[in-house]
């Protein structure tokens, strides 16, 4: 109509557009960085230097890897459903930037102002399972299908204690807004939610590692028994996009843990985005260390751990939190 009505729409939209673009860059840069960190950690854990030849201390190895992935031929397996096969990596990656827009990296550093940030991230995280299902089904390969079957039962199981542990914190703070949740905590570690809700943090962390299909819970891939599970038939960038999505999901998980349990961008002396990033990268490094330290669990152990331990513990924790909130309020 006129300039004023355009201005009413524009600022939020502009923020969203710029935020999404920046976040895609952030995700891609982090994919490279984490690939390097992972290979270095893997190397040192196994008493070898890791990548060392490309650039000083192998710093440019990730670029070489990316070039190799992009340059490879994309093959569709014979007899596979091409549409489902190629929809899967897209579906694994596309929701990822959307999950990032609600994360408060700093006091004013966020993509979208919403009072439902937590629900937004949890709901878009569900696409990952569907992508793994389509990948497993579309590949026309029995290992892929077995991987998909595992992915489904694992993701459906671990989603429940994850939601319950997150709910306990949301209940305590009375909000689903990640900015508000992060802002309600103090600067020092004993003022963070992890000091009040250590059990919820532990449950969340274990479930998050399982939900992102990271070792020791990477049963959907399990290269020793299923070659590469759902990723078996993907070549070049098909595989690369799955990896990018996996690393991005690790960062989302780390960001949510930071905002919910570790005080977000609050920190001693100088609160700011640097504290947020420091805590997030600490958690992500911990996840990478876990992968190279622990052996993969068996599938029955994985499900037993969830249904017999994490789920009842999460329920008890939620009930206790509700009771405490009611008595205190």
């Amino acid at each position, binding site marked *: *109509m006129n300039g004023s009505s355009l201005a009413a729409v524009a600022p939020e939209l502009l923020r969203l557009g710029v935020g999404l673009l920046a976040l895609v860059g952030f995700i891609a840069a982090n994919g490279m960085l984490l690939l390097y960190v992972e290979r270095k950690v893997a190397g040192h854990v196994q008493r070898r230097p890791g990548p060392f030849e490309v650039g000083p201390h192998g710093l440019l190895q990730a670029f070489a890897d990316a070039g190799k992935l992009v340059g490879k031929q994309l093959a569709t397996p014979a007899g596979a*459903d091409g549409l489902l096969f190629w929809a899967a990596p897209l579906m694994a990656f596309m929701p990822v930037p959307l999950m990032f827009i609600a994360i408060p990296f700093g006091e004013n550093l966020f993509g979208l102002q919403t009072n439902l940030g937590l*629900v937004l991230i949890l709901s878009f995280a*569900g696409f990952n399972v569907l992508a793994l*299902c389509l990948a497993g089904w579309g590949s026309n390969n029995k290992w892929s*299908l077995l991987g998909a079957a595992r992915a489904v*039962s694992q*993701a459906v199981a671990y989603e429940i204690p994850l939601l319950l542990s997150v709910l306990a914190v949301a209940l305590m703070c009375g909000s689903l807004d990640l900015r508000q949740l992060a802002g309600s905590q103090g600067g020092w570690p004993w003022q963070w939610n992890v000091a009040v809700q250590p059990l919820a943090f532990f449950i969340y962390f274990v479930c998050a590692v399982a939900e992102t299909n990271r070792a020791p819970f990477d049963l959907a891939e399990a290269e020793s028994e299923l070659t590469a599970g759902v990723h078996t038939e993907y070549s070049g960038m098909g595989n690369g996009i799955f990896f990018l999505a996996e690393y991005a999901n690790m960062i989302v998980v780390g960001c949510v843990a930071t905002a919910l349990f570790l005080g977000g961008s609050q920190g001693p002396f100088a609160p700011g985005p640097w504290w947020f990033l420091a805590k997030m990268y600490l958690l992500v490094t911990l996840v990478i260390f876990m992968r190279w330290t622990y052996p993969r669990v068996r599938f029955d152990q994985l499900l037993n751990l969830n249904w017999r331990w994490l789920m009842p513990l999460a329920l008890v924790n939620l009930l206790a939190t509700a009771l405490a909130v009611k008595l205190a309020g």
Partner: protein
Amino acid sequence: MRELVVQVSFALYAALTLGGAVWAVTAKSLVRALLGLTLSLMGVAALYVLIAAPLVALMQILIYVGAVVVLIFFAIMLTRAQAEQEEAGARDAGRTLRAGAAGLVVAGLLAAACLRHGPKIAGTAVEVPPSDIGAAFLGPYVLGFEVISVVLFAAMAGAVVLAFERRKPR
């Protein structure tokens, strides 16, 4: 400007919903039909956002795409359908016609009822904060809320009974 954006996005989301639904019905492979269903559910979620109900939209994605579709997928895997196989048999033209007519009658009746007796459309939808929705569930609508929990509990108990029943004969 704003009105135009809303109208265009409504058309897009409606097309997504209906297109996904048509795909789900006409696809020959079960998993492709499931993908169509997912598209349709996403379209409905987008329509919820358009009427300023983001909580309902996100719940639609969390529950339907994240859980229900995945469960349907699990059921498809149990049917031992092959990835390259087309499950649907040859289509009979008369049957398609009759099914289309039956669908159109229901859609027409609903549309006529909505157009004639529907409430006046509010100019701008107002977003309700989640705390108000929660308070409404535990306040004026508490009976319905609790009845739903009882139904869910009965369904869960039934599932457990069925699972143990099958395990016994061994």
